[in-house]
């Protein structure tokens, strides 16, 4: 093989791999991208049932109710609009009423959001960034108060835990 032919083989193989990689990505981007929405976005976009999205907001106070077994129903709110959510499975350790949450799933035919994933927060003071941004956008962000509040009521919780 001449030098030129060798180079052609190399370029051919590299081109083929590049081409397939780009092709794979384009196809995958068509099907596998999940948009983040707040309840207001869902209403504004008229998100179709069955379309997979991430829904984020605050867990409305007093909305968490246990159905049979490990199924939980709660309401996600951005304080302007709400969306009911059902989820079967274990909730993350830091899932609380009044705190931020991100869920992934799709709206069912009855208008209830069926989540298959509820994202865990790793930290007591951490508000999912998407949720914070969505609240800011809608004008419901109260500065760093949620974090402060969380920090302040920690001792109370700690006592509660110890005396349990």
């Amino acid at each position, binding site marked *: 093989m001449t030098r030129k032919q060798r180079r052609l083989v190399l370029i051919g193989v590299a081109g083929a791999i590049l081409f397939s990689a780009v092709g*794979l*990505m384009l196809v*995958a981007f068509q099907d596998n991208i999940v*948009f983040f929405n707040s309840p207001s976005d869902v209403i504004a976009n008229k998100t179709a049932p069955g379309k997979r999205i991430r829904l984020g907001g605050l867990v409305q106070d007093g909305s968490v109710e*246990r159905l049979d077994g490990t199924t939980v129903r709660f309401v996600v709110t951005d304080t302007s609009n709400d969306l009911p959510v059902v989820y079967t499975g274990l909730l993350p350790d830091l899932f609380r009423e009044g705190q931020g949450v991100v869920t992934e799933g799709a709206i069912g035919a009855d208008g209830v959001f069926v989540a298959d994933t509820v994202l865990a927060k*790793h*930290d007591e003071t951490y508000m999912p960034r998407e949720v914070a941004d969505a609240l800011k956008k809608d004008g419901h962000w109260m500065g760093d108060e949620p974090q402060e509040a969380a920090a302040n009521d920690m001792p109370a919780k700690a006592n509660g835990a110890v005396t349990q």
Partner: protein
Amino acid sequence: MIPELGHYALVLALALALAQSVIPLWGARRGDQAMMSVGPAVALAQFAFVLFAFAMLTVAYLQSDFSVVNVWENSHSAKPLLYKISGVWGNHEGSMVLWVLILAFFGGLVAVFGNNLPDTLKATTLSVQAWISAVFLLFVLGTSNPFLRIANAPAEGRDLNPILQDVGLAVHPPLLYAGYVGFSIAFSFAVAALIEGRVDAAWARWVRPWTLAAWCFLTLGIAVGSYWAYYELGWGGWWFWDPVENASFLPWLAGTALLHSAIVMEKRNALKVWTILLAILTFSLSLLGTFLVRSGVLTSVHAFASDPTRGVFILLILVLSVGGALSLFAWRAGSLRSGGLFAPISREGALVLNNLLLTAACGVVLVGTLYPLALEALTGDKISVGAPFFDATFAPIMVPLLIAVPFGPMLAWKRGDLLAAAQRLMAAAGLALVVLIATYALTVGGPVLAPIGIGIGAWLILGAISEVTFRSKLFSSPLSTGLRRAAGLPRSAWGTALAHMGLGVTVIGIVAVTAYETEKIVSMTPGKTLDVAGYELTLEGFSPRQGPNYRDQVGHFTIRKGGAEIGTLTPARRIYAATGMPTTETGIRTMWFSQLYVSLGEAQGDGAVAVRAYYKPLVTLIWLGAVVMVIGGVVSLSDRRLRVGAPRRARAPAVQAAE
């Protein structure tokens, strides 16, 4: 006093780094021996001062000196000793000091073990290394000073995030950083070579042990992180394609490619320009990872704090070093003469294919990781690119690579014979096929692709064994001579075989657990029994348990199989006293390579508790495979060739240090 000493030591280290970044380089350009010889001494002094600063911070943690903001925010007097120490790097500021410490440590290693490098290359490399040190020290001192004080010291600290209070997380960051930062040496060597305008096979021989050592650390670091996420988070997953995980995986993919292309450069003096580019890219991806993780662009357990000035500063470092290095590359690369012709079917050709596929995989992961950030910056749309995207893109690129791996070592340099290689691999292919069919027969009705995946894993392992048996002619000569030959094979050959075998082991683990795991999520009351993949788990009851700084509610499960009791599981819900933060402690029982995995959810009233139970077949192979890969890397590092080095240009650095 102690924090101030630490702070002062960091400032001195910065001054030394600045001196080191100019004087040796200047000396190298002028040919001034005295100026060049400044480099090693200053590099060691710089390391000593950073080490001192790190020690002072550790002392502040050990003494629970809550007048130091960093200690107050991340420690607690009741915290066990181990987590007081690991708390030093369990936060943004401290982890950046650790980063700089490891950077200075590697600089010191070059200073000590680089005696046989050409003087100018050593001096230039040390200077380049000091540029990186200097900007990171500036970053620490300017935006992330861990030694700041509070006027009125609080009596008690706020405690380390409980999920970081774990042995896995105590060792994960240092290992990962040793990997990330270890690639800085390859980067510094590459930039120094570009400045000098001279790259040859000897250069590759010096760089390879450093790359190999960094690669071993990174592999181990990623594996530990993955196992930690698996048992600590309680979700049963071992890899989430989370942007933060990808941030560590990207340099691993590029570093693996670098490791292989450096072989071609060392043996055949070819692929020079590409290897230099890869060395630059690998460390650039490490920096990108640092940026993604530390800037607050991503929220996760790793993003300790999001202070915008930090993000901008790291982005600046990233742009400067990557942009600068790539500009230098564009300017100088043309002058590097390439040599070593080879046919497409040859060892070199196989290594090129490896590099093309690994960089393609790296590119795909990079795009998937950065696309949501770019889209949000450009359009404001928030999206997430999750596991389905990576499964659909990364896997198809890796499969051809995995199938090709056993062929590589069987091909000769310059011009290989694919047919002969295939013949030598006949036995391996046949056995792998048997494994595939057996898997299929055992799991009829299961996922169709899974037996193929298991077959590929077996192919990798058997291919690696074939390589050793072929090279030592184990089956075509008397056993004793065969064994003697096998023992006499170069360590690097054993290293290759072990690393490829480890890859196969990991592949089998991944495929098995993905395809055949059983998951049950149920609500259980004491006395109830749950069936998971043939194992009966009975919840006997609950009992409290007091830990040093937490309180557990332990669930007691008895495992029975076919009526016979074979063990117990004790998952727990844990609440840390200092923060009141609950965590989940999983109960895991390992049976051979498979695991039963139980985590407890929240109490559901009426005495019931949510239980998540898994049977994870062969799951431990995922991490065992990584360990085998690392053993392969270490064996290869101990190769005589890397210790003794090229006859012309003396010994290679850092082998002792890397072990």
